[in-house]
């Protein structure tokens, strides 16, 4: 290699060094270590670890606690993702006309983007507190007062779902609006001249051409659902009566989780969570490839 090439390569490595070192130390190393740690039990508070081996992964997979948390997570995603999508799309379509004041409505519909998860959770805490909460005092439903929506085993998870959907509404709205604006007006006009009414235009032009946008939204919403932690920590602590709202993530990190002090088991669950999210991410990459064919 010529001297200038060597110099360039060295300079390149210099440019890359920060990123590579940081990613190495804080992404790859932990990944490996977590997989290794997942082979052990115990280890919390610097206590002794007991080696169990690959069997542990199998055991956790079979365990009731893990399966339950998987069920809760799946249910939570089922509540939040389709509803979030429909609401986001609905809002976007609603605000898509050229009427006076649309900018105002669009700002309003985007507004939940400004709330962090903690802030959103606390606001809804204020709304849903039994006895003194806002909704408790203006809506007639009994369950709000006794024992409180978040304290009721049937309603705790749906309540969390509502918080999540609300918090994500602004984000989903923005994405859908951008997607709608990417659809060429020609297609609508052509369909209009050909005789298609509003609903037919929606199903034949809007929805199909929003395909990539919808896919993107679904994946992001699903990943967010899987990552939910702060809300559970603030609002239910894992669920009234044990683990009603304990998702996989909360199982790992929640202070009320059964494995809160067992770093080995936490690691095992974390690796399993990683595998789940890997599948979700790969679906996204496949989706990206399909999109190329549309162009």
């Amino acid at each position, binding site marked *: 290699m010529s001297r200038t090439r060597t110099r360039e390569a060295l300079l390149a490595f210099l440019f890359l060094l920060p990123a590579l070192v940081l990613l190495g130390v804080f992404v790859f190393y932990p990944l490996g270590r977590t997989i290794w740690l997942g082979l052990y039990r115990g280890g919390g508070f610097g206590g002794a670890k007991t080696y169990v081996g690959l069997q542990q992964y199998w055991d956790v997979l079979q365990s009731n606690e893990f399966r339950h948390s998987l069920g809760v997570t799946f249910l939570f995603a089922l509540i939040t993702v389709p509803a979030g999508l429909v609401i986001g799309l609905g809002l976007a379509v609603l605000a898509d006309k050229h009427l006076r004041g649309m900018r105002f409505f669009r700002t309003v519909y985007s507004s939940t983007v400004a709330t962090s998860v903690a802030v959103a959770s606390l606001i809804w805490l204020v709304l849903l507190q039994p006895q003194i909460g806002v909704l408790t005092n203006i809506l007639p439903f009994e369950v709000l007062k006794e024992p409180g929506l978040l304290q009721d085993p049937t309603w705790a998870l749906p309540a969390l779902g509502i918080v999540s959907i609300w918090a994500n509404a602004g984000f989903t709205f923005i994405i859908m609006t951008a997607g709608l604006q990417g659809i060429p007006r020609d297609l609508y*006009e*052509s369909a*209009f*001249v*050909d*005789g*298609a009414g509003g609903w037919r235009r929606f199903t034949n032009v809007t929805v199909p*051409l929003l395909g990539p946008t919808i896919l993107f939204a679904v994946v992001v919403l699903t990943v967010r659902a899987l990552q939910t932690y702060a809300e559970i920590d603030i609002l239910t602590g894992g669920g009234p009566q044990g683990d009603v709202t304990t998702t996989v993530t909360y199982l790992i990190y929640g202070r009320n989780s059964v494995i809160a002090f067992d770093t080995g088991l936490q690691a095992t669950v974390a690796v399993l969570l990683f595998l789940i999210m890997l599948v979700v991410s790969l679906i996204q990459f496949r989706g990206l490839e399909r999109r190329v064919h*549309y*162009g």
Partner: protein
Amino acid sequence: MAGVRLSNVSKRFGEVTAVDNVVLDIGDREFMVLLGPSGCGKSTLLRMIAGLEDPTDGEIWIGEQLVNDVAPKQRDIAMVFQSYALYPHKTVQANIEFPLKARGVGVRERGHAARDAAQLLGLSELMSRKPGALSGGQRQRVALARAIVRNPAVFLMDEPLSNLDAKLRGETRAELIALHQRVEGTFIYVTHDQVEAMTMGTRVAVMQRGLLEQVGPPQEVYDRPASLFVAQFLGTPPMNVFQPGLLEPGEHLVGVRPEHIRLDREGPLTARVALVEALGYERLITCVLPNEVRVVARTSEVDGPREGEAVFIDAEPRHRQHFDVETGKRVEA
């Protein structure tokens, strides 16, 4: 089958007048070309006929029907967009069938009509493909097939050839002319390309800045342009325009087309040859007048003046067109 009548039609967007009091009578089964530079209002006019824009003033008649308040769906028209506007997720067949499906036509009937239209345009082999897998020319034909499948009275086309490369454009022009004869509908065709206008239209309507400058058969618009604008818009190289008094005494502008310029050893106007471009079948000779104005002559003679030589410019009286200095309108000598 129906003609289209535009009666004092205007369109204003706020302060801007896009179409200014246009009166135009398009006969049944005509091939009418709306020709003009970009921004002249031709597309807006087309869109008003389609029902995509509402006229600010005036009336639009399709056949015996006043259509100002009638939705496009009810107007018995079909439109081909510049971008073709094909549904990327539907097959060619589904694209062609769409106008029928939107009107509730049954599956069987739709299929027949679509197949007939496809056959007319040579698309029979491509029915199950999607637009993404088609070439530009093929996509354009799908757009045409979709337009004819309903057999409407009026076909509206907005610069359908502008996205095709030059060779394809030539071929498709011929196909469109053949299609017009086959289908027996009224074609209203918008373009900025004068070659398309000259070769395809039964009549040409030239527009500029919202105004209709002239309507007539292509040859007539070429031979007897109604204004300086029309005279210089049609014809390549453009018509030479001489200031009053230069070529002949008088107060009008004199226009002479390059093919009618004669370069002689004697004549009313002296010039020097600046450039000779030999194109094989003809030569374009650019001369410079004493006042630095350029005049282009076109000749098929092989022997002629060479660069640097002095020549005299002349033209037969019958080839001299006169235009008013102020308005640019044609003046009869």
